[in-house]
């Protein structure tokens, strides 16, 4: 499959994520949208990694392109950590203001 398909899918996912973050007020949905953007990037990384690997394998370089996939693991680890911290924050937020609407989080303004 040409790389273009992966790129367009990834862009689509990323844009959905951005629009979601910008428009939604529910913290959990925003959170999910962020994950969506991260995964769009992951997808792209994996796709390019595969492409480079195939191209390089012809010339006998078997390890080429693997670092892209390494990054994906990094991102997944970070995302997992983020989820745990982020969800904890959201829980605390709900306990305090009985809502997960981010527009209530404007107390720093004053």
């Amino acid at each position, binding site marked *: 499959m040409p790389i273009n398909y992966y790129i367009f899918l990834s862009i689509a996912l990323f844009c959905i994520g*951005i629009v979601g*973050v910008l428009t939604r007020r529910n913290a959990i949905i925003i959170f999910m949208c962020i994950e969506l953007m991260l995964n769009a990037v992951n997808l792209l990384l994996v796709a390019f990694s595969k492409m480079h690997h195939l191209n390089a394998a012809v010339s006998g370089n078997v390890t080429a392109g693997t670092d892209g996939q390494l990054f994906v693991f990094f991102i997944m680890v970070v995302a997992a950590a983020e989820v745990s911290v982020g969800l904890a924050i959201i829980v605390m937020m709900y306990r305090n203001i009985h809502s997960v609407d*981010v527009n209530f*989080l404007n*107390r*720093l303004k004053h």
Partner: protein
Amino acid sequence: MKNVLNIVYLIPLLPLIGFLINGLGRKHLSKGLIGIIGSGTVLASFLISVWVFMQVKGGNTYVADYFNFINVGALSIPFAFQIDQLSSIFLLIITGVGFLIHVYSTSYMHEEKTEHFGRYFAYLNLFVFSMLLLVMGANYVIMFIGWEGVGLCSYLLIGYWFKNTEYNKAANKAFIMNRIGDLAFLIAIFWIISKAGNVNYGDVFAFAQGNKFTATDITTITILLFIGATGKSAQIPLYTWLPDAMAGPTPVSALIHAATMVTAGIYMIARSNILYSLSPVTLNIIAIVGLATALLAATIAMKQNDIKKVLAYSTVSQLGYMFLALGTGSYVAAVFHVMTHAFFKALLFLGSGSVIHAMGGQQDIRKMGGLNKYMKITNATFLIGCLAIAGIPGLSGFFSKDEILAGAFSQKPFGIVLYIIGLGTALLTAFYMFRLYATTFRGNFRGTHDQEHHLHESPAAITIPLIVLAILSIIGGYVGVPEFILHGAHSLKDFLAPVFAGSYQVFEAQGISHEVDHSTEWILTGVSTALILIVVVFAWNKFSKKPDTEDAAGFGKVLANKWYVDELYEKIIVRPMNGLGTFLNNVFEKSVVDGIVNGVGRLVNYSSRQLRLLQSGQVGSYVLLMVVSMLLFFVFQFFLRK
């Protein structure tokens, strides 16, 4: 080179030691001891000065170089003394008259507390020290040290009774007006340094004689020096401090504000005579200013009623005379008049002190009168002083004044004008002096009974200086008997010839002659003497019969108020300056300078308050901002950047 004259440093050093002893020990020494130290040191200086005078009689000049005062790069200013004919004459006047006044003061100031008595003598000694530095210095910087030093002492002594605010203000005024002149003097020194690279008299004069100064340079330098002299020697426009300076004790007025310090300007110009001779423009200015001052002060003196104020204006007027002499190139006459004036004006001031002492502090001549019956010696000596200053033949003032007038007459082309105004001033002088004398000593006593009861002749410490000065006022003129009366009798002229030799050469080269026909001179002298005698007799008669005790009216009021010059200065200088100061302090500094500074601070505050609005607290808006900026960055990076 070792020379016996090297010990001339003792002349100023002794009064300085006296100052230190009296100043530091004023609480511990007795009055007698203070008086002895104060007078003794000056007497010792006088004796050395006499010896020095003998040494330089042969016409030699000696420069005693002690140490490098300032030595930077090419400029070297030694701490050196120059002993020649001119300085030795001034040394004699300063230490001689100074000694008499010290003796006089031991009695006059006796009622002061010991502490203040000591302070007084310390100041007097310091003054003598500074004055000696002034005349002995071998370069303009040492002269300037003495120049400011005498100004300081004058300040300290005018404000001697420091509890009186008015006296302190007079002291401040004297110092500040002198400083205006001093600034001009300083700039002249800088100018000389910058052109001649040196301030030693010998080098500067040689430089000038070699015609190495341009005409502009020399004119500017001499005018600046002259402005310096107008401050110290109380000439227009800086004369108003001198009458106010009468706030000081009377012996101080005699020593500083009549006999010595105020003649410093004359000394300075006589010392720099070469420079002045090379600059005819300046000489004319000096003559005009001198004459104008002489006339102005004489008119004011006619309507003053304070015995010391009359003498003060008379001093200003006589100083104007001396400047007239300088301006007409008769340097010898100026120095001559300095000398005779020192005698008779010190005598008059000390006499007035004796009167004030007897009157219990009263200085208004309208409340005196008939004192001749109570104070024989004071009366006689005061009369001699008045006769001398009026220019009665045979007394010292006659000779010096006559020489000045003859010098003015010889000036071309306006000599006759100068002469007439000069003579008019002399007549005014005779008039107000005899108005003063007659009102004070003749007629009937007009003071209170209490005062009359206490009237007495002063003690010996006061009368002896009076007698000595009276004798000097009579015989002092015979060192300068004019050529037309007795050939070769002007010993002062011969004595001073080496000092002015350069100027005579210059005058000769310019074709200027100060010679007047002997017959013309006889006529001039005859006319002036006759007129003066008439005025003297008129004033004596008028004021011993009916003293003018009423307040002046009409034009007299203008004169009594000193032509309102003080008020004018107050209006055009003091008040605008204070106003400007207040404006700068209250308005400009606070609103403009500080305003800009605080404005910058306020701007920062304001803009941060505005920028804070961007922080809406809406998470969504932050993200939007982030996305938009990233997009813009991409657009810029990929499409716009070349």
